[in-house]
Structures are given as structure tokens and as C-alpha cells.
């Protein structure tokens, strides 16, 4: 159906009935509500339960499925963990390569060719634009999501969240932090 919808949209844009930017804007207003709650649940559980984190590292597909988040595309999921030495970031320009069963809808910038090419050439520059400044000794690894293998970034747990519940921790996990363009952070003025 993806091709069918693309076909309709491109025809209507050509004929002047539709403006792609307007369509993207409408999607943006809804995608913030759809939200990456599934992925946030996976991350919060990994922070709280070392056994679940180990399972994610070994077999992310099975660990994620165990929470009931099953993708009908049947792709292989890989969870990459941010730590003091490495920051992970995911790119791909085909929205069909995006793990939407876990992350919800892809942001429109994620699909843009400039994001992909710049993320590969200058990941720190792209991160800076998202307001993410990493320490100099942290390496950046960029992962290319494909139709077969899709990545989920497990961000580092924010400081000062000891004793927080799964629900509270989920609020720290944004969609962008699971793509790796930002870090997980405590909600502002909870």
C-alpha cells in the first residue's frame, strides 16, 4: 500500500491539488500523539531489570516480542546500548525500514536525504543541531537500518532517577532518544 499512497500523493502534487509539506505538517501534528510508548516501555524495563537488558543484548527481537510488541513485517531487531564510551545513532531514508511497531511513526526529518547523508559524514554536527553535545571521548556509531535489521537505541538512564517507577522512567524516553539524536532526560517540571 505504500506505493499506492505514494502514487496518489505524487499525482496530486503534480496536478497542484496537494503540497507535500502540508501533508507532512498534518502528520507531524498527529505523530506526537501516537508517540513511541512501546519503545519507551522497552527502554524503561531494560533500565530496571538487568536480566531483561541482557536478553535485549542477546536477542532483541524475542525480548521485544515478549512485551507484546510484534511487527507484522517480521524483521530482526537489534538493541544498541549507549554508554560512557559509545553513542549510537540510527539512519535510513526509507520509512519502510523504520521500526514503527516500537517507535511509532517516523519523524519527517528522518526520511530526508540530508539527514542520512549528514548523519554519516558528520554525526556530531547533526547531534549538535538536536542540542545533543557529547563529551569528546565518546565515540559515535551510526547504524544503517535496513528492511532486514532495524535498530533500537537504548539511551543511558538519566542521573537522579534512582527508585523511579517504570511509568516515571518511560516519561524520560523520547522517540528521538531511541533514534539516538538526543539523550534520555528527566521530564521538565514534572
Amino acid at each position, binding site marked *: *500500500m505504500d506505493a499506492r499512497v505514494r*502514487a496518489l500523493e505524487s499525482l496530486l502534487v503534480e496536478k497542484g491539488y496537494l503540497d507535500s509539506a502540508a*501533508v507532512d505538517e*498534518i502528520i507531524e501534528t498527529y505523530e506526537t500523539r501516537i508517540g513511541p510508548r512501546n519503545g519507551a516501555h522497552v527502554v524503561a524495563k531494560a533500565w530496571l531489570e538487568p536480566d531483561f537488558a541482557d536478553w535485549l543484548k542477546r536477542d532483541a527481537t524475542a525480548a521485544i516480542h515478549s512485551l507484546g510488541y510484534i511487527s507484522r513485517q517480521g524483521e530482526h531487531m537489534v538493541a544498541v546500548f549507549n554508554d560512557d564510551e559509545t553513542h549510537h545513532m540510527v539512519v535510513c531514508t526509507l520509512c519502510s525500514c523504520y521500526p514503527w511497531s516500537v517507535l511509532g*511513526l517516523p519523524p519527517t526529518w528522518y526520511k530526508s536525504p540530508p539527514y542520512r547523508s549528514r548523519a554519516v559524514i558528520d554525526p556530531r554536527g547533526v547531534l549538535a543541531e538536536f542540542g545533543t553535545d557529547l563529551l569528546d571521548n565518546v565515540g559515535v556509531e551510526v547504524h544503517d537500518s535496513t528492511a532486514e535489521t532495524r535498530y533500537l537505541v537504548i539511551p543511558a538512564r538519566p542521573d537522579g532517577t534512582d527508585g523511579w517507577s517504570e511509568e516515571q522512567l518511560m516519561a524520560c524516553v523520547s522517540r528521538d532518544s531511541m533514534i539516538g539524536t538526543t539523550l534520555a532526560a528527566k521530564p521538565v517540571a514534572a
Partner: protein
Amino acid sequence: MSAADIAALDGIELHDGEPVFREPWEAQAFAMVVALHQRDVFTWDEWAAALSAQIHSGTDLPYYRHWCAALETLLDTKRIADRDAVQTREKAWHEAAARTPHGEAIVLDPQ
């Protein structure tokens, strides 16, 4: 009724008043209809009627497949895009996707 009254649509699944999508193309199809309505290509009443007619046409399809079928019917009726043109273009997208290396954006008819 001029605003896009989403809740008035036959059979739509809402969560906290917002539509629920299972795949990205569903959101794309949804947004296209809202955008076309905003450009006065059709009224919201026209859209609600077209969608309802499609849903009750007797074919059993997932919701957003009905959505796309209703949109195609409406565009055909209004002589904005006929079915053949949509078919041809869909084929072109499949061909473009097939020749595009992974990681590059799919473009129609590269010059």
C-alpha cells in the same frame, strides 16, 4: 461543516480523540485527505459520505484500505485523477523502488 470533524467519520478508530495508525502509509493517506479538504478539493461531508459508501460496499478490507479506495473513487468522480493514472503511477513507484539502492531516497524518473 467546514472543519475536518474526524470523529464524525464512519468506523474510525480514535484514541484520546486522535486517529490510530498501524503503519506509516495509513498516516500518509489520512493526512492527504485532511490536506485536500483544507484546499477545498472536497467538503468534509463529501468525504464522510464517500468513505461510508466504500465501507458499506460489501468488500471486507482493513480500515485504511477502505480509506484509500474511497479517496480514489472520489478523485475519479471529480475527474481529478482517474483510476488508470493511479495504477500506472503505482507501477512506476514499484519500479523506482526496485532500482533504488538501499539507503537512497526513491525518486520517480531520475533524469
